Structures are given as structure tokens and as C-alpha cells.
């Protein structure tokens, strides 16, 4: 079976994932309690409060995480919560900028510097996180565009992470949710909700169970769940049909591969290496 040309498998997967995008099925999405936890925590934030939005991903994880960012920003701006956004991944700031403009400016008519800010990127990973807990102006003296943050109304009264109502972290790996829990949540006891790639999500369930995370969105499914909760059908919802068929295809491949393996083994046709 190792000699089987894998390009046929590539073709099958391509067709199976493409089909529901061309002809949506519209399968219903079920909301998990982890996603509901994040939603309820954000829903409780009083209007006019400020939250820190840690956008720790780059284009490699965009299909999973950008819909989460869009959905959460929809929730925040619709509740008139002010957003202080920043990135610990170098590829993050333009994605955050695109999301803030698309949702904040174009949809809700929010004003940069008054209702939200993009502080940009800072290198240092855990060091930056701990430093933010001490002093945001020292860590980010300027925003992404080079404007001193002291000149921005949204940053007035925000000296450190203790002055924000909550931290929302969208992360693709390291640095990300794990480090935010270790260095910030455990040190400064700020409320923390996280969205992450599906690859990382299983390892964060202990943080959710312990209460260190108030909510957890895992992968495209988590993004689709949040889109359902906020009533915004975005790319995640659209992608869930393809996700469903893709999973069925993988299960079929596993079953077929094992069936063929056992069959050939029984027939004595498996060549020994």
C-alpha cells in the first residue's frame, strides 16, 4: 500500500472539501460549553470598559483564527467595549489592523484612538507579557503607526493589564495562550479567555477546567460556535460543512487503510521490509 500513488488521495480530499463550498449543506452548529464560557464572560463586560486583545497569530493560522477575531470583535464593538489590541507574533499586526477596520470602523463606525487601538508588535514573548502587567506605556511607547500612546484617548487611565476588564487571546502557538496563563493570569489574576488553533486546543482543557481560562475556542469549530452565538455568519460557519465532509473522508481513509492492511496480511500479500 506504500506504493499507492498518494496523489489520488490528494485529489479525493480536494474534491471532498471543495464540494460543500460550492454547494453548501447548512448543517446545524452546536455550541460547546467552552465557547459559551468565553461568550458569557465577554457579554458581562460593562459598556465603555477596555479589554486587551492579544492577537498572537500569523497568516499560517488565519483560516482558523481570523474568523474568531472577527466574531469576538463584533461582540465587543456591539457592546461598546473599547479594544486595546497588540501582537506578539511579527505577522500579527496587519491582520489585527484588517479586522479592527473591517469590524470596528466599517461596521460599527468606531474611531481609531478613541474606541480602539492597534499597539502593533513587540518582541520578547513572556518578557513582554510580564512587562505589560507592570506598565503598558513602557512596553508599547508608540502604537503600530508610531503615534505615542499618551496622545490616544483610549489609552487614558490604562497603565497596566490590571486596568483592563479582561484579556482575550487568540493564539497560534508559542508565544500564546499557555504563556498568557503562566505569566499573566497566574501572576496578575486577570480574567482570560482564549481562542486557539485546533492543534493546541486539547492541551488547554486543563486550564479551562481549573478556571485559569474562562472560555476556550478551539479551531474553526470554535470560531463557528462563536459566530452562531453573536449571530454573525462568517467564513467559519461557511467552512463547517467542508470540515464535516473532510472529517468523514479521513475516517474513511483510516478504516479503508486498516481493512486493506488486514486483508492483505491475511492473504499473505504484505511484503516484509
Amino acid at each position, binding site marked *: 500500500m506504500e506504493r499507492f500513488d498518494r496523489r489520488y488521495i490528494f485529489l479525493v480530499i480536494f474534491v471532498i472539501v471543495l464540494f460543500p463550498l460550492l454547494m453548501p449543506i447548512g448543517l446545524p452548529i452546536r455550541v460547546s460549553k467552552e465557547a459559551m464560557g468565553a461568550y458569557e464572560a465577554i457579554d458581562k463586560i460593562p459598556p465603555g470598559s477596555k479589554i486587551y486583545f492579544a492577537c498572537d497569530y500569523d497568516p499560517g493560522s488565519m483560516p482558523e483564527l481570523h474568523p474568531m477575531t472577527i466574531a469576538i470583535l463584533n461582540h465587543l464593538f456591539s457592546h461598546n467595549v473599547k479594544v486595546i489590541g497588540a501582537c506578539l507574533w511579527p505577522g500579527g499586526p496587519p491582520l489585527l489592523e484588517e479586522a479592527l*477596520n473591517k469590524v470596528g470602523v466599517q461596521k460599527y463606525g468606531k474611531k481609531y484612538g478613541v474606541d480602539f487601538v492597534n499597539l502593533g508588535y513587540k*518582541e520578547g514573548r513572556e518578557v513582554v507579557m510580564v512587562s505589560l502587567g507592570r506598565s503598558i506605556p513602557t512596553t508599547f511607547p508608540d502604537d503600530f503607526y508610531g503615534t505615542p500612546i499618551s496622545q490616544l484617548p483610549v489609552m487614558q487611565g490604562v497603565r497596566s493589564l490590571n486596568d483592563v476588564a479582561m484579556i482575550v487571546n487568540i493564539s497560534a502557538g508559542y508565544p500564546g495562550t499557555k504563556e498568557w496563563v503562566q505569566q499573566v493570569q497566574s501572576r496578575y489574576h486577570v480574567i482570560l479567555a482564549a481562542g486557539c488553533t485546533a492543534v493546541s486546543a486539547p492541551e488547554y482543557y486543563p486550564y479551562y477546567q481549573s478556571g485559569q481560562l474562562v472560555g476556550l475556542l478551539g479551531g474553526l469549530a470554535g470560531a463557528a460556535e462563536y459566530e452562531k452565538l453573536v449571530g454573525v455568519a462568517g467564513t467559519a460557519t461557511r467552512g463547517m460543512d467542508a470540515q464535516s465532509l473532510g472529517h468523514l473522508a479521513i475516517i474513511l481513509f483510516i478504516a479503508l487503510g486498516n481493512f486493506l492492511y488486514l486483508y492483505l496480511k491475511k492473504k499473505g500479500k504484505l511484503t516484509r521490509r
Partner: protein
Amino acid sequence: MKREVPLIITAIFGSFMVIDYFVPHPLVSGFGEMLQQWAIIVVAFAYVLGVANIARISGEKISRRSRDWRYQFPLLAGLAFMLTVGVVWGVGERTLFNDFYLYAYSPMQGTMFSLLAFFIASAAFRAFRMRSFEAALLAIAAIIVMLGRVPVGTLIWDKIPVVSDWIMNVPQMAAKRAIMIGAALGAISTGLKVILGIERNYLGGD
């Protein structure tokens, strides 16, 4: 000088990061804040060093006419272009830098990662074998979780998502917690060894 000074620097910075957590005195926290700002600056230089190394290796490949040496030219051209455009004209919205980020860097990185979907399908068919009870347990858990996380699982049996959630929140979580605790013990001991100068591999050879 060659090994002792770096070890002393490591010990000072490392110890201070630990002491800073326990001592709230302004003198300690002020010094800690300063050291953290220094670390942010030095780590940024490390990134630039990495890129400089890429340029150096590319140059060497061209001069030695190594395999695929002609492709180093578009690599260096892309590097020089983004660097120049970003440094000179800025990185914000409506800049050429931002355009090439969104429409060259972003799609290429996204596509490279998306290739993994094909390889995981290929691996599922060609390599995933339930040769033992443990492997079968892995496969069954994987199948239940895969079905439970997508809408089609509910269509097959409405209890699949419930079972999947239970697996994620109970046995899976317990095992991950065990791995987490083990890793934490390892990280703490390694950190202590580094700060105390017992672990010196990061200094490289002499």
C-alpha cells in the same frame, strides 16, 4: 571572559526574574522593569541576526553555485524589497509593505500550511494502523472526537458530541494535565540548572 561573564549575566538576569516575583519593593520592581526592557531589545536583535544569517547563507550558495543556487536571487530580491519598503515607507495600512504582506506573504504562508491537509489524509490511509489495543484506543478516541466536533456527528447520533465532550473534559484532560505537570517539573529543574550554571550547552563550544 569567554564563558564566565555570560554565566554571570545568565545568573543575574535569571535570579532577578525570580526575585522580582516575590519581592514587591519598588527598587526591585523598578530594576526588574529595566531588565525586561533590555531583554526585549536584545531579543529583537536576535531576530535580525537570524535574517542576516539567511542572507549570508544565500550569498554563499550563489558563490559556490550550490544546488538550486539561481533561486537565491528571488529570495534576496524579496528580502531586500520588503526590508527597504518597510523601513523607508512604513508598515501601516495603504503602504506597499502592507500590500505585499496581505497579497504575497500571507497567501503563500497560508497555502504552505494548507498542504498539510493533503498529507494528513495520505498518512491516514497509508500509515495509520491499529496494530495493538493501544493503537485501537487512539483511533477510536480520534474518530469520536472528529465526529463530535463537526455538525455531521450530531446527524449520525445525537449523543456523539456529548461523548466527545466527555472524552475531552475527562480522560483526555487528565492525561494532558499529567503531561503538563511533568513538563513543569522538567522546565523548573532545567531553568534552575541554567541559572546556577550547571547547564551550559547554550554557550556552544569553545
